[in-house]
Each structure stands twice: as C-alpha cells, then as structure tokens.
C-alpha cells in the first residue's frame, strides 16, 4: 500500500490524459491516450489484415494464414451460435472481437508512463455492449415485430408460473449489456491492478535492505500473472464475441 505513496498508484495506469484538446460543438472530443490507443489499434488491425492478405496467395504466407485463421475462427463461431442466417452479423462480431482483442493485448505491452488499456474503462465496454443490445433489439423488432418480445415468455411452462418467469426473463435480458460490459471492464481492470501491485512489491522489497532477498517472489508472481493476463485478454475478447453471437441468435431466431 505504501507503494502508492511513491506516486505509482496502481490506478494511475487507468488515467486518461489529454493529448490534443478538441472541442466539437461544446462536446469534449479531445484526443486522449485512450483515443490514441484506439487509433493505434485501428491502424494495426487494418494494416495487418489488409497487407497480410495482399498477396491473395492460394498457398497462404504465414501472416496471411493468421488473418485467415482469425476469419475462419470468428466465422465458425457466428455460424455455430447464430446459424447461417447470422452471417450478416459476421463483420460486426469480427470487428468487436478484433477490436477488443487488440486493445486488450496492447494494454499488455509495458511502456512506462504510456501503457493504457482502453477496455479497462467502463465507458468503452458499456458502449460496445449497448451497441450489441441495441442491434439485437432493433433487428429483433424489425424481423419479428412485436413477436420479438416472445423471447421473454419461456415455452413449455405452466401459465401460472408466467407472472413470475416473465419478469425474471426481462431482468436477465436487461442484465445482459451490464454483464457484457462489466465482465470485460472488471477483468481488464482487476488484472492490471493486480499486476501493478505485485510489480510494486518488487521495488518496495528491493529498497527494503534485507527484504531485497524476497524480491524474486513477487517477480515470479508478476511473470505468472502477466501470462495469465495475456490469456485473460484473449479469452475476454472471445467471450465478448461469443456472447454477442448468443444474443444475436435471439434476434435472428425470435422466441425460443
């Protein structure tokens, strides 16, 4: 805890710093480190996917096969969870997955004083989750009209139980965007805080005389945690994509 006193608070890494102040019609649209990371992610994603597939070789190069594996992976996830009719949402799911994945992973590259994890901010994850839920609701209503609300009525249930079950279904539906956004946000946040705290212990112990002998312990833990965090970064991006598919499946197929 005392480590925080040195100005290396574990939450300092989540701070949003203004780089270029911009004001659009009275709205603060400044380019911040968050915005810059998003731009970098966009640039990396686009240039990698675009230039790795530039050769369009029948026998893919290594980079091209990475792009193709990502494509096939998300395509099969959409096909399995939403079905063939859901392939119209493939670009959306792919964009969500790759965006969250790259932002998560960029946050794992340690650059002192710079590293920032865009997805550790609830504003970002909530916006993405609301985007998904809005698409589910709008597409569901467009496709099934008022019958879309049939998803709140579980089939094969005695009518007497419906007054109890319908509110539960509605609550579970409403909690979807919350769980979708909080899951990603909390995972990224907690992981990075834990990393920072354990890494902080290393410095603390090294500066503590004889305690320096214990410094390798948190170092080992930090290494292990870093590996875990990389896994979490990938996993959370996948979870986000899969849940998006499952919610979209409701919109495509209507009442279950």
């Amino acid at each position, binding site marked *: 805890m005392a480590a925080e006193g040195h100005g290396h608070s574990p939450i300092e890494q989540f701070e949003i710093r203004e780089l270029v102040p911009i004001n659009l019609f009275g709205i603060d649209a400044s380019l911040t480190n968050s915005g810059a990371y998003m731009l970098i992610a966009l640039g990396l994603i686009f240039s990698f996917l675009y230039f790795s597939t530039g050769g369009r070789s029948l026998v893919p190069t290594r980079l091209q096969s990475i792009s193709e594996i990502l494509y096939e992976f998300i395509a099969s996830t959409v096909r399995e969870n939403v079905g063939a009719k859901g392939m119209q949402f493939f670009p959306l799911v792919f964009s969500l997955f790759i965006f969250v994945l790259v932002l998560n992973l960029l946050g794992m590259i340690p650059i002192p004083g710079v590293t920032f994890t865009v997805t550790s901010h609830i504003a970002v994850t909530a*916006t993405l989750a609301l985007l998904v839920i809005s698409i589910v609701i709008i597409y569901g209503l467009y496709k099934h009209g008022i019958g879309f609300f049939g998803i709140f009525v579980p089939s094969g249930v005695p009518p007497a139980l419906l007054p109890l079950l319908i509110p539960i279904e509605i609550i579970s539906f409403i909690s979807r965007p919350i769980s979708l956004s909080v899951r990603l946000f909390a995972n990224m946040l907690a992981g990075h805080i834990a990393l920072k705290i354990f890494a902080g212990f290393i410095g603390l112990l090294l500066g503590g005389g004889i305690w320096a002998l214990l410094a390798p312990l948190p170092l080992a833990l930090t290494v292990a945690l870093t590996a875990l965090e990389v896994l979490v970064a990938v996993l959370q991006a996948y979870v986000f994509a899969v849940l998006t598919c499952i919610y979209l499946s409701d919109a495509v197929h209507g009442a279950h």
Partner: protein
Amino acid sequence: MAESTHKEAVAGKHEVHTSTGAHGGEQPQFPPFNTDTYSSQLVWLTLTFTLLYVLMSRLVLPRIGEVIDERRERIRRDLDTAERLKSDTDNALAEYEKALSDARSNAGAIARETRDKLDARVSKRQAAVDAEIHDRIADAEKRIQATRTKALASVDEIATDVAGAVVKKLIDADVSPADIRSALSKG
C-alpha cells in the same frame, strides 16, 4: 492511508479533474468512473469503431473470404479433376484389358485358322499324292498284266510249236497248229 485519500477522491467527485491535474500531486478520482472523460472516449470509440467496421465489412473481410472461397473452389475443382482423371485412367485400363483379351483371342483364331489351312493343304496334297501313287500302281499292274498275258500267249505259242515239233519228231506227221492249240487247250 491510501484508503482515506481514495475516499477523498470519491467525495470530490464533482470536482473537475482535468487529466493534467492528476500530475499535480492531487489524488485522482478512480479514472474509469470519471464521467468527464466519457465524452472524449465515446467520440473516439465511435469514430474508430465505425471506421473499423466499415473497413472490415467493405474491404478486409470480403478480401479474406474471397481468398478462402477461391482456395476451397480450387481444391474442389482439383479433386474433381483428379476424380475425372482417375475414371479416365480406369477406362483406359479397362480398354487396354479388353484389347489385350481381344488380341489374345484373335491370336488363337489366327493360329487355329492357320493350322486348319495347313492341315487342309497337307491333306489335299496327301490326297493328290495318294491318287498319283494309286494311278501309278494301277498303271504298273496293268502293265504287268499285259506282260503276263503276252508271256502266257507266248507260252501257248511255244507250247504249240514245241508240241508240233514233238509230234513231228515222234510220229512224223504234220499237225496243223490250230489242232495242236485246241488239243492243248483241252488238256
């Protein structure tokens, strides 16, 4: 200690924390809950994600999909070609086998024909030779018969002559050869 400063930060939620203010030694509010940064985050998120979506759906994904489809198509076509070539090979093989068995049976037929022809010639020739031999034998027999008849005729004549001479010597009478001949033929 840290907790108390954190509480202070939470308490001072309505204070505007500019991002640069955090460096001024002032304890920052928990950044993800600092609503002042939301608008800039949303603006850039909207901008970058929209751009990403457009680039992905219009440019990148169709391109990757095209390559994958093309490969799948090509593999399918290659497999089809292989299948066709295989059936062609099978057909050619069957044709070859058929030709081979045809040739074999033809060869048998030719051999049989040749043998028959040769046999026929041989038997014809043999028949001709046989006939010739038969003719010659018949000829020779005829000749022998003629010679014998002639010889026998000479024997009669000689016998008549001898008989005439013997009669003349014995009884000194001239007996006409016709009488002698009839006398002899009686005996």
